[in-house]
């Protein structure tokens, strides 16, 4: 990782589930709130591991981010009809599996614009349909799927809790370390004053 003067020129190395690495510009990566929260301030040694997602998916996601770098700030979901030709091509050339992978990755990376466009696209599939027509469009979840989903979410919540606890512990330690010299200073001053007072009273 380098750190030239212009932030848009900074390149980050991303590692996919296959272990492959590729470059992504800082400007594109900063559209991910997850990245901003995890690496922006502290930096990263070596490639950033997004190993839950394959290279093709990550490249697709960052292709979108690179493209939307120069767009205005995101201000809520756009109507599908307002999407540019490039956006439409981007979505149309994906098959269903890739589309789902992109939503999952975008959701994990917390890229609001991409997630919202993908969701609007799904909602469009259901728009204006009655119950019977909807049943044909979507796969209904089985009990096992729902159970598995719930378990994954519980695991995620537990992992997030652990990370938060660790972070809190680390923060506490840092605070203690920072406070030590001040406390020592106070203690030293107090000792000096006590000694002075004692010597004065002895006189």
């Amino acid at each position: 990782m380098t750190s030239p003067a212009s932030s848009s020129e900074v390149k980050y190395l991303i590692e996919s589930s296959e272990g492959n690495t590729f470059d992504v510009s800082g400007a594109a990566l900063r559209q991910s709130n997850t990245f901003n929260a995890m690496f922006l301030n502290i930096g990263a040694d070596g490639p950033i591991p997004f190993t839950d997602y394959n290279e093709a998916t990550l490249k697709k996601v960052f292709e979108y981010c690179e493209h939307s770098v120069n767009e205005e700030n995101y201000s809520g979901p756009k109507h599908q009809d307002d999407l540019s030709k490039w956006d439409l091509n981007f979505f149309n050339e994906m098959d269903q599996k890739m589309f789902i992978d992109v939503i999952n990755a975008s959701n994990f990376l917390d890229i609001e614009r991409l997630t919202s466009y993908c969701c609007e696209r799904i909602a469009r599939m259901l728009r204006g349909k009655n119950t019977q027509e909807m049943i044909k469009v979507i796969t209904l979840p089985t009990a096992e799927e729902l159970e598995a989903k719930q378990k994954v979410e519980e695991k995620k919540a537990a992992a997030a809790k652990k990370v938060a606890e660790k972070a809190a512990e680390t923060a506490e330690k840092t605070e203690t370390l920072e406070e030590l010299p001040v406390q020592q200073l106070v203690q030293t001053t107090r000792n000096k004053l006590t000694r002075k007072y004692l010597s004065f009273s002895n006189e």
Partner: protein
Amino acid sequence: MEKPFPLFRLPRLAIEEVISTMSPFEIINLSKTSLKIKYVIKCFLRTSRNSQFDLQLIMNKEPKVSLRGSEKMYFELKITSDKTKNGMRIYKECLYNEKFDTLWIYSENLIDEWMNLVKTVIEIFKFEKQIVIFHIDKFPTRNKAIVDFIKSQTPSIECCEFQGKTETDEDVEYFLNNINITNGLSMTVKLSDHFNFPQFNHLNSCSLDPANWLTFNQFIQFKGSHLCIHGSPFTSYELNQFLILWMTSQCHQNLRFLIININDPQSLVTIFNLPFEIINPNVERIGRVSQNDTITLRGGIDIKRIDGVTGTIHFKWRGDKMLLLMMVF
């Protein structure tokens, strides 16, 4: 993407984002696809800040469930016995910027289908207010069943409106005895002179047309702020008694606005057998009617309550009936 889309393999946030971009019609249809989907939708809508609607249950020739969202947008689902209307959807914009998106659903059994729809809607959405508009003579044999059903779905309703032309004392009484109305009541329904009104005192606003059954005692016990009475049997002497009771703070303490019919326009002297002041009609006054609303008044007859509050009375005609209007400020 021709294969069925595995919506529920998406992360929860994405599913919620999809739901949030859907209209109530689509959400209702989606919730009917499976119990599990209904459960997920319910969890999202009941915790979401954006899912707040007012619910209107309208028992008409085509029973209707209407969800009123923000910006005066109404999503209406009408149950129809006309097969050709099934799935028909019409969007229209009306006066005062109100927008109506209406979808018709065909059913041979209107009431049962309406009940199923109400159940689904109440189950999945979170409502701020619940309003019932009951055309009491459209399904006379099912009125009690409808009341029982509404009672089973909601502990109380904010406002209720009755409409009807046939004398239906028993059904109206049954409704009022079983369903708690918390704010407003409007009755444009024909009732016998012996109709017994079970709940009246605690309502904030009430409109009765005709109020042939209303007794003077019931009338002076009204505690709300807005009262609109047409066709009451009160004499001018009784209206005078009411005004005197109001001036001495013995009744209608919260009253802000009153309309009441005058049965004998020749005896206004009897009504105003009390201290009053006639205001110059060229003088314009501004009265505060609620926290942020004001009203401009010209002329009228002022009467004063013992605590200094002013009531301004005007007279108006509605057809051949004279009305007394009183604004309190």
